[in-house]
């Protein structure tokens, strides 16, 4: 059940990041509501996941899904740069965050 909540948490984090993109594009109330609901449900599910899974592991997986998902969505739907240097550096940041969360 912990893993189920964790994946839901990651998915809603992507929704939150999409909200951020929408705010940039339209700046309307609907975008802000999507951002709020996305992150609210994401944090809620993450807290539920952490009840059964270790905290560092949960946070690492959650960040991973959100960052990778957000980057893919940005490139596919919001014209963010696709160059390999950008993707590599985002990958390095992601690896460091996961490393820190798993060792702390």
């Amino acid at each position, binding site marked *: 059940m912990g893993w189920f909540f964790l994946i839901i948490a990651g998915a809603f984090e992507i929704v939150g990041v999409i909200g*951020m993109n929408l705010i*940039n594009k339209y700046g309307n109330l609907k975008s802000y509501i999507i951002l709020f609901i996305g992150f609210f449900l994401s944090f809620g599910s993450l807290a539920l996941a952490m009840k059964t899974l270790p905290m560092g592991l949960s946070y690492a997986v959650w960040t991973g899904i959100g*960052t990778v998902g957000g980057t893919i969505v940005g490139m596919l739907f919001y014209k963010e*740069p696709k160059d390999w240097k950008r993707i590599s550096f985002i990958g390095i940041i992601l690896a460091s965050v996961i490393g820190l*969360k798993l*060792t702390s």
Partner: protein
Amino acid sequence: MNRNWAYVAIAGILEIFWAMGLKYSDNILAWAATLFLIYLSFVVLIRATKEVPVATAYAVFTGIGTAGTVVIDMIVFGEPFSWTKIFFILLLLIGVLGLKLVTTESANKEGAV
């Protein structure tokens, strides 16, 4: 561009404080302050994404928050020091600085600000 990267950094620093707030808040005032910091960090982050790509800003924001929390835990809350943590923090800095460099480059290529 630099101003917007400063916003990303400020949002990340605010995240360090609200992450501590989530961990240590034990009264209504502390929780209210934590919620306000969460709100503030997102306002600043969204401001930054006017120029910096959303996924780029979000990765750096998460990175600063995580590294900052680990550093504060070691210095203030007596978590054990380890070279592994220092290694990942340095790696993270390389990632952030590199990302900043290539973001300016690609923005120039497209003729954007």
